[in-house]
């Protein structure tokens, strides 16, 4: 029952998204733009950053960025649906509240997965080298992180029910995360104090872990921390999300 309900919600979301050409095109162009417009800037820097290959350094950061940003904004769609009465209509059915959330998250996760594949695939053309299983694992971490963010974003949307409240909240979360996670440049090139501050960013460990995975280092402390943080964020995101969706009168 639960999976059937999840599937119904997921199928509905995906169907509507795929019919929206803007959603499809922007989703695919985003990773391409990053790779084409930002990658060349990094190439000459790779040596100074201590990497053999600029894209092995750069692509993991982009993956996490896609995961964070795409998914954090997922909640805006939910507010529109709530306004149209869709959420209430779904909540009056016997369907599991968790399924209503999960079906939506799965769509965002699928989007992220496809974007990630496009990004990695394209990066090969630019000269990405590394471990394929590592990349696959990195993509999995990205997707789990994205699921956590999508769940949190949906929960926030259902709680605030207002784009005007949500946008500043998300921006004030996303900006420091983006700057302090070493997404575009590794934190190790920064001054001491910046590195200390960034030590409190779970996403930094995830970016670092994906970087190591890309180079084929599976069993390092760094990857362990990254995997751990991903799982913690994933569990926390889903917990907050389901709690909000289950709450009566949400």
């Amino acid at each position, binding site marked *: *029952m639960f999976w*059937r*309900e999840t599937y*119904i*919600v997921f*199928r*509905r979301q995906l*169907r*509507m998204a795929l*019919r*929206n050409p803007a959603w499809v095109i922007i989703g695919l162009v985003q990773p391409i733009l990053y790779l084409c417009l930002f990658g060349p800037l990094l190439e000459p820097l790779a040596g100074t950053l201590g990497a053999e290959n600029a894209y092995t350094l750069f692509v993991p950061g982009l993956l996490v960025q896609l995961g964070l940003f795409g998914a954090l904004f997922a909640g805006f769609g939910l507010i*529109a*649906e709530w306004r*149209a*009465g*869709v959420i*209430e*209509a*779904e*909540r*009056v*059915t*016997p*369907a599991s509240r968790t399924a209503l959330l999960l079906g939506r998250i799965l769509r965002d996760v699928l989007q992220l997965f496809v974007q990630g594949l496009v990004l990695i695939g394209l990066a090969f053309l630019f000269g990405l080298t590394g471990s394929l299983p590592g990349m696959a694992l990195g993509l999995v971490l990205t997707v789990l992180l994205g699921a956590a963010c999508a769940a949190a974003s949906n929960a926030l949307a259902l709680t605030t029910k207002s784009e005007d409240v949500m946008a500043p909240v998300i921006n004030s979360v996303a900006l420091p995360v983006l700057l302090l996670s070493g997404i575009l440049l590794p934190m190790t090139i920064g001054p001491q104090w910046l590195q200390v501050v960034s030590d409190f960013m779970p996403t930094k460990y995830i970016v670092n872990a994906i970087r190591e995975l890309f180079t084929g280092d599976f069993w390092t402390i760094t990857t362990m921390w990254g995997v751990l943080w991903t799982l913690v964020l994933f569990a926390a995101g889903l917990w907050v999300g389901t709690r909000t969706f289950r709450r*009566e*009168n949400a």
Partner: protein
Amino acid sequence: MIHARGLARTFEGRGRGKAQEEVKAVAGVDIDLAEGEIVGFLGPNGAGKTTTLRMLTTLLKPTAGSATVAGFDVATQSQQVRRSIGYVSQSGSTSPEARAGEEVVDHGMLYGISQKQAESRGRELFEQLDLEGLWERKPQAMSGGQRRRLDTAMGLVHDPTLVFLDEPTTGLDPQARANLWTHISDLRTRRGATIFLTTHYLDEADALCDRILVIDHGSIVASDTPDALKRQVAGDLVSLVVADASKAAAAAELLGRIADTEVEVTGAQAGAAVSARVRGAGHEVAGLIRGLDAAGIDLESIEVRRPTLDDVFLDLTGRSLREQGA
């Protein structure tokens, strides 16, 4: 099918500073619906109709009181309640960018019916509700009345035997309204459904409902059959317009002899209106006209109006519903 006792809901006002105002949307209502009944829920804007319905359909937790719906407690057995009911909300239920038919099918499937079943029942409902040819249409490209009927189809696609309809006919043209009435009474006669609907339209409640609950300021102020409620109002309204205003007093005196209420005289100039309520006016009015004639009082018009639910409403709440409907 529905039993509510002392059902109440208070909203925390989002007052600024210390002005934490509370809104008592529903102040403890008792509601009983037997199987197969069609009951109308009537009340002015903000009376608490939607809030009551949202509590009965498990969308809102009551702050006090209890209710069982289809034999299940709304607070502790919400899952079973949801399985047993259909709900058409006041404010829409479909995404503007989705396709109408798919919304209906998905909604039915969330109730556990198969895709095939949902599709055939959905198409049947589209036909019955005059939505033919709109299966593929997006709600954003539908008229307001079409969207309203789509909401009704959404709420009925899984063939519920207990249906809550929150102002189902708002925004419908008279023909569509009459069509929906037929559909609603058919649900009862063909499928034995029990129906609880809110409306502002008195003629609607009159035509459709076995029983009417009138709610005002969160409390139920009347509960009876439309006829019994109308009987509460003392008699038919007889209004005379007297051609010569100076004779209004004499006309009022004559009307006063048969009237059951005080005679009201309005408009001192030409065409003064004299009115009062008279029990069984059909029987009395002939004598009144003879009397007026004998006294040499010319009438511009005479009107006898049977009491409407609007009069009942005015009586009960001190407010008229007339401007909103009927």
